[in-house]
């Protein structure tokens, strides 16, 4: 099996899995319990918090665990808007955000905010000048994702952050780093709020994290027993959080090597554009994230190619798994190049993939695509 769908989710690494299992067996206590057994569990949470903080260079106290990336993004957008809504009514985002951000902005629109959605160029970059024009005194929140989940374009978050703050230093800047966390170099210096997820970095599903800069206010969306300093109540998913901590430690150690390695895998797969005619890269072929390669094979429907690859034991995606259950016809990829969306296939990598796997995939594509191209919609 060749698993090229790591942007949807990853296999849990053996280390993270074993760490989580030993924790499940040995300490099932509630970290809020006052006895020493509970205290042991609490220490484990702190350890994970430090590991996550280390990746982005923040203080551990600035990290809050959530139930996942979606909840983190919902909370970032809705919570910040609710905290700062009295100071201004304009909020800004991009047209290529994950649904958990995009739909939160739709919700803000319903609540009476003025939502500005920035378009992107054909490689998926936002225009910083356009952003600067949009930021005014009334702007309280800007949310721009770091690595796009469908085609892997990497925004220059450092430049965007300083531009936003230069224009209005009170404006809060959030960046969705679910696809960037532990893969790209991201720093807490370049954002007020950063959102992350565990299952994209070879850890467990069901847990995510938020970085919230000291002094930045985000209103909580949940109410209850005071966990996570009252910001995210509910008994912590200690096992999954432990796995996230362990995975973050490992990823931080190997970040540069992994980056280089998946870059080789991606480059190998990218050679298909030389082998076959009319194959297009969606996003930025040269400078996109090495973890994601989105290709459109003209005249081949993405889902058909996906199923054909599947019969060869190769697993890819037609777009974000999160969008495949909605009936919306247009994909995010269509925002770059209209019409490309229906023939788009996303390959996404992890350090566990090999160059040989990419080579085999190229061979399969060389065989399958011409076969499928015999039959095009008429």
């Amino acid at each position, binding site marked *: 099996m060749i698993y090229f769908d790591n942007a949807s989710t990853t296999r849990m690494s053996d280390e993270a899995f074993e760490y989580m299992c030993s924790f499940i067996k040995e300490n099932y206590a509630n970290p809020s319990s006052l006895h020493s057994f509970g205290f042991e569990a609490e220490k484990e949470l702190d350890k994970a918090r430090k590991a996550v903080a280390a990746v982005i260079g923040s203080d551990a106290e600035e990290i809050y665990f959530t139930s996942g990336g979606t909840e983190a993004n919902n909370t970032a957008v809705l919570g910040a808007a609710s905290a700062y809504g009295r100071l201004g009514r304009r909020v800004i985002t991009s047209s290529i955000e994950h649904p958990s951000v995009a739909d939160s902005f739709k919700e803000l629109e319903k609540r009476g905010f003025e939502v500005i959605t920035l378009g992107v160029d054909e490689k998926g970059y936002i225009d910083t000048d356009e952003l600067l024009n949009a930021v005014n005194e009334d702007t309280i929140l800007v949310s721009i994702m770091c690595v796009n989940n469908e085609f892997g374009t990497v925004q220059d978050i450092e430049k965007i952050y300083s531009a936003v703050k230069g224009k209005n230093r009170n404006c809060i800047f959030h960046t969705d780093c679910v696809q960037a966390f532990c893969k790209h170099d991201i720093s807490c210096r370049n954002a007020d709020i950063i959102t992350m997820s565990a299952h994209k970095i070879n850890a467990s599903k069901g847990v995510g994290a938020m970085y919230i800069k000291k002094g930045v206010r985000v209103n909580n969306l949940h109410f209850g027993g005071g966990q996570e300093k009252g910001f995210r109540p509910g008994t912590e998913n200690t096992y999954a959080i432990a796995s996230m901590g362990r995975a973050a430690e490992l990823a931080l150690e190997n970040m540069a090597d992994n980056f280089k390695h998946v870059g080789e895998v991606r480059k190998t797969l990218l050679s298909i554009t030389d082998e076959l005619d009319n194959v297009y890269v969606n996003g930025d072929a040269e400078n996109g994230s090495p973890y994601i390669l989105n290709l459109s094979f003209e005249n081949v*429907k993405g889902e*058909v*190619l996906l*199923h*054909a690859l599947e019969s060869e034991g190769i697993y890819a995606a037609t777009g974000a798994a999160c969008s495949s*259950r909605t009936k919306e016809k247009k994909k995010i990829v269509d925002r770059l190049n209209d019409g490309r969306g229906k023939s788009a296939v996303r390959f996404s990598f992890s350090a566990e993939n090999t160059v040989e796997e990419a080579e085999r995939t190229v061979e399969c594509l060389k065989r399958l695509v011409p076969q499928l191209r015999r039959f095009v*919609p*008429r």
Partner: protein
Amino acid sequence: MIFIMGENMRNILLVKYGEIATRGKNRYLIENRLIWTIIKRLEPYEGYRVYKEQGRLLIVNEKKDFDYETVIPIVLNILGVTAVCPGIEITDQSIESLREHALVHFREHYPNGGVSFKVITKRADKRYPLTGNEVSADVGGYVLHNIPNLTVDVHAPDVKLMVELRNNAYIYSRVIMGQGGLPYGTSGKATVLMSGGIDSPVSAYLVAKRGVEIEACYFDSPPYTSERAKQKVIDLASRLADFTGGIRLHIVPFTEVQLRIYESTPPEKMTILLKRAMLKTAEKIARSNGSMALVTGDSIAQVASQTMEAINAIDPASDMPVLRPLCAMDKQEIIDIALKIGTYDISVRPYEDCCTIFVAKHPETKPKRSIIESIESKISDLDSLIDEAVQNTEIMEL
């Protein structure tokens, strides 16, 4: 006179089956089939037995308490059952016994009163000393005096308290409507072409409801159709199996046939030729499993391939009668049935249908049979590809 409550009473479920009762010499066959089905469905639960009782069936539990919550939904799903009535059977038919038991039954079902009611007595045993009306008046009066807030309404009562005097006496008040129709498997067999859409499961259900045993046939075209689309059909067939007590699903690998038609046909005629090929394939499967007809979900003029002209061009592809139970129904009427039988939610699962390469942008709405047939005759190897597809068909018992 002294009688002892409970000793000569037991809980029962009365099963009514309407239409069967009007049959002539075949009646016992149909009744036996229904009894057999009920016994089979209740097999996993201990102690249930089924008796014939003058034009209706009686389910009793001879070992344990009658578990209505489990048994009623199972029996309601059985085709041929028009209604079920939870009630009690009494061996002591004296008027005192009837009164007391009627009261017990009424209390159990309407403990707070607050309803209008009337008593209806059916006296099959004409030797009974009182007339039906006398029994009704006596029992009704007794219940009325012993439960608060009751009123009598002989024209439109909330509750009809039924007292039936046969070999034993039966008392019941609730009538829960079932599927109706005829017992499954008493009207021959047919093969239904199932797509995963809303219509075909409904037509399968309607035909099965007339007592026809059904087998289903699905045309799978990987990689153009997905594993999830196939699972959808499997789930739909499983839902139908709740009514039929099991169903056989034939999964036909159809990619090669579709591609051959694609290559040899003008796009606007593709759908018609495809549907003809499907009928031919389904006919082969139907003949081998003893079916006497094919069933489709066509509804006149719903889409291009269901116009009268299209039906005229498609239908002659097979020698078997093609039943189209939805042909005169509106979409909303079909959806209403799909909702009722629980197939709608499965049919509308949002899996992208990636089969679009086989659907033209502008399909012909008035195809000519002769032209279609002449194009078809020029498609090379179509028959052998169909035979191959039939040979490689995967069979699932659901």
